[in-house]
């Protein structure tokens, strides 16, 4: 009988032998990886004019670096298609611009992950999902671009858990974390345009993140009620290690529309959330975080021998954000319910976000 569909013929024993070999060598995140060959990798390198030996990011304290070629090998192993590679390269540029990775944040007990945000026409060109289940599974470009960064961390920098990766618990985004803005359903200027890029440019923004916190607000049509739910999540005392924190509000399109309908732009939302992301001195004292260490500026109890007053000393209202710029806003997800998220980013911040352009592939 003829088979109904024609499938490629492979030697499964050979394929399994190769996959087991990669696994035994520790070249994976735990999931099977795609075996690579020189010819396969050359397809990725053909997507850029950059020299394969160009260093994308170095970790001097480990005496290790990631080159264009290493990034290509790991993108291939992660399951990327070659045409995704310019986005992976832009992700490395953005991570370098952000500056935390070179300062060993991927080895920290905090267990951060690199959250990537993609804007511009490349989303449609390579099939990046921005329209539902954005933090979830199901889309090859999102899944494999984020994974390419993790596999590089493991294979180029040797950051394996229980060894140089000292994360106490880590977080699920360490497998992969690449979202795209739903520019088409956003009532506002796209994220990259807000930060000075052309609307026809494609960009990757890097955000070292600790967690994605879910916001339920299906009940309201009042902008202030929604914004207070966001502020209440951002100010939570459990997030405080440093004196202040930073966050990216990932608004579902329905919430963005609600705000825009009442005349709120991103600036109005940012200002309101900044002003209301506040804890009382008593609330901080109740969890032993009412002062900071004179040495590290980490929060601790005012009774601790290293304690010095925080920047809000003398005031009962203590902000968790150092400025409105510590807050980024992006619109992403399906237009189907009053659901948003707060991406808790690492570090106090306050400057511009780390955005890198996606370079065009050679003609």
């Amino acid at each position, binding site marked *: 009988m003829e088979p109904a569909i024609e499938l490629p013929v492979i030697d499964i024993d050979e394929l399994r032998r190769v996959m087991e070999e990669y696994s035994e060598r520790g070249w994976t995140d735990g999931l099977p990886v795609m075996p690579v060959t020189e010819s396969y990798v050359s397809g990725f390198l053909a997507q850029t004019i950059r020299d394969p030996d160009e260093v994308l990011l170095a970790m001097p304290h*480990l*005496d*290790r670096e990631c080159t264009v070629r290493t990034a290509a090998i790991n993108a291939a192993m992660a399951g990327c298609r070659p045409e995704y590679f310019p986005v992976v390269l832009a992700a490395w540029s953005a991570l370098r611009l952000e500056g935390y990775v070179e300062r060993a944040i991927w*080895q920290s007990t905090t267990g951060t992950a690199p959250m990537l945000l993609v804007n511009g026409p490349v989303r449609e060109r390579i099939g990046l999902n921005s329209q539902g289940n954005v933090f979830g599974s199901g889309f090859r470009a999102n899944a494999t671009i984020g994974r390419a960064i993790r596999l590089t961390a493991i294979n180029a920098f*040797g950051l394996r858990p*229980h*060894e*140089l990766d*000292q994360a106490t618990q880590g977080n699920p985004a360490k497998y992969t974390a690449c979202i795209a803005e739903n520019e088409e359903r956003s009532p506002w200027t796209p994220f990259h345009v807000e930060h000075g890029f052309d609307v026809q440019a494609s960009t990757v923004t890097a955000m070292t993140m600790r967690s994605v916190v879910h916001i339920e607000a299906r009940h309201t049509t009042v902008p202030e009620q929604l914004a207070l739910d966001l502020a209440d999540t951002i100010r939570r005392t459990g997030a405080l290690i440093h004196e202040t924190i930073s966050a990216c509000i990932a608004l579902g399109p329905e919430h963005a529309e609600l705000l825009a309908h009442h005349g709120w732009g991103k600036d109005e939302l940012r200002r309101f959330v900044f002003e209301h992301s506040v804890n009382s001195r008593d609330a901080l004292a109740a969890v032993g975080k009412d002062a900071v260490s004179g040495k590290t500026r980490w929060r601790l109890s005012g009774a601790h*021998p290293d304690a010095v007053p925080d920047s809000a000393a003398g005031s009962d209202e203590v902000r968790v954000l150092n400025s409105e710029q510590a807050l980024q806003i992006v619109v992403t997800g399906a237009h189907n319910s009053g659901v948003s998220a707060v991406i808790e980013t690492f570090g106090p911040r306050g400057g511009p976000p780390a955005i890198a352009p996606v370079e065009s592939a050679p003609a």
Partner: protein
Amino acid sequence: MLERAGVPAVSICTDAFVVPARAMADVYGVPDFEFVTIPHPIASLDPTEIDANVQAVIAAVVRILTGA
């Protein structure tokens, strides 16, 4: 780093970090690097408990510093 600059130094870490400390020593090409360990944790100890930890390892610190 300090030792490479000619300054005698001792690394002290808690027992929770022995594996990464050993891995870092490998990275720096000194797999036999000697360091002192104390029980984990530190951050939640009071001054008396910290003092007790110091007393317990001071002899080892001196021994490594003086190469005795």
